[in-house]
């Protein structure tokens, strides 16, 4: 199996430097969609999914099951993987129909 280099640089932690007196009470974040800025892809160790779009039948099982919403869609068709948020759990590869086998988990090396 080929070794793919992880392309995404590990996300630098958002620097929080506020003293306790100035932080939002209870850690509430006064806006939505903040999960997008947390690059869960930085947690990936060892394995990453590789998608074979030729084989894919666009049944969307991987899209439904991915716990990080990391399977990208173009309209109603799977178009790729968002590696910034894919944490490499392999669920997508498990739920892809065995006869199709459009997702393979491959070994990945972290750069530098």
């Amino acid at each position, binding site marked *: 199996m080929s070794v793919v280099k992880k392309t995404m640089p590990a996300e630098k*932690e958002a*620097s*929080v430097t*506020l*003293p*306790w*007196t100035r*932080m939002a*009470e*209870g*850690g*509430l*974040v*006064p*806006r*939505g*969609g*903040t*999960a997008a800025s*947390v690059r869960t892809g930085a947690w990936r160790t060892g394995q990453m999914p590789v998608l074979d779009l030729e084989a894919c039948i666009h049944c969307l099982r991987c899209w439904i099951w991915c716990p990080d919403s990391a399977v990208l869609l173009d309209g109603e068709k799977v178009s790729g993987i968002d590696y910034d948020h894919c944490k490499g759990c392999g669920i997508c590869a498990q739920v892809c129909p065995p006869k199709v086998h459009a997702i393979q988990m491959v070994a990945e090396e972290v750069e530098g």
Partner: protein
Amino acid sequence: MGDSTHMPAGRRRTTMTGAEATAEAMRQIHPDVVAAYPITPQTDIVMRFARFVSDGVVQTEFVPVESEHSAISAVLGASAAGARAMTATSGPGFALMHEILYVVAGYRLPVVMPVANRALSGPINIHGDHSDTMGSRDAGWIQIFSENAQEAYDNLIQAVRIAEHPSVRLPVMVTQDGFIITHGMEIVETLADEEVRQFVGTYEPERSLLDVDHPMTVGALALQNSYFELKRQLAEAMAASRRIIADVGEAFGRLSGRYYGLTESYRMEDAELAILALGSTAGTAKVVVDELRARGQKVGLVKVRVFRPFPAAHLRDLLRHVRALAVLDRSDGYAGMGGPVFAEVKAALYGLPQGPVITNYVYGLGGRDITPEMIESVYADLGELARRASKEPERVVAEAALTPHYLGVREPDGALISALGALQLNGER
């Protein structure tokens, strides 16, 4: 109140159990959401409130869940959504909530929860002691202890206003001793519906998860760079709540004639010997204090009403001039530094140039009765302790602080307690 009749709206003075008084307070508070699971001896509270819901007396959304972990989780969600949310629990159910108690406090959600204090098994026991709530004393909840049904009612109404106060925003639990208060019948004076409605006010949350125009994230990840600051905030809010609790107790007094503070001191003016207790035992001790005072003994009682935040400064003032103090714990530390209340009181009095000799009595585990005679024996012990301490202070102070006494347990020689060796508990030997 066996039927489903709606209470009249005015003030009433009637006999009620603590559970009934609590359900009545909940009806008058009229929370938006109540999620609960029945557990003895809390069941009577929630059962009565559920009846109010099914009869249409209140418009509360009632969520019957499958466990207490779910009850507190549902209430957490409802509170984050901007609802005035309540639940109630007891003993093992309370223990099952332990994990989520921290989350509710950590998110600064003003949830209010009556707790019927109950022993934590095993062996299996359904009766009242304080081992349940003491186990979560550092979860970040304000803890208010009630002496009787009247206080269970009064405290719950105050709890709503304390929890939701902008400079507090913390969950509050209001405890009452299981069975002793929940199922004991007493005269209770309730306020008019309108008075309670005005006292608690309308809840206007600053933010709501349901407000789609202003989306927010509740429960975001807070790692090494922010978690500690948020916990520091929580500690600060707890400390600041002391003043709000006192203010609310004062405001409640102006309304009802029943004033409340963090502690209550009973005949402490010139007291040389004092007992410190929480919950229903404080009521029993008051009777003993009156009797001993009539016999000319300088004895007094300190009741800790608010256990979290701990009223350390109050206790230093109150106990500075006492010669000997017994802290009564309805839960044990099992070879820790005595019961949890004892450990905190000792810490609070640390370094006083002239403090009392302090000793500890663990009593009443699993609902074991505490009688006036037992309390009298403690005062007798204290007199002896004070005498000995005046001769050999260092040795006596150390001995008193390091040796917990078990009050009302059968010892091999048949004595239940040191001073009144002849006492027996309901003839059990």
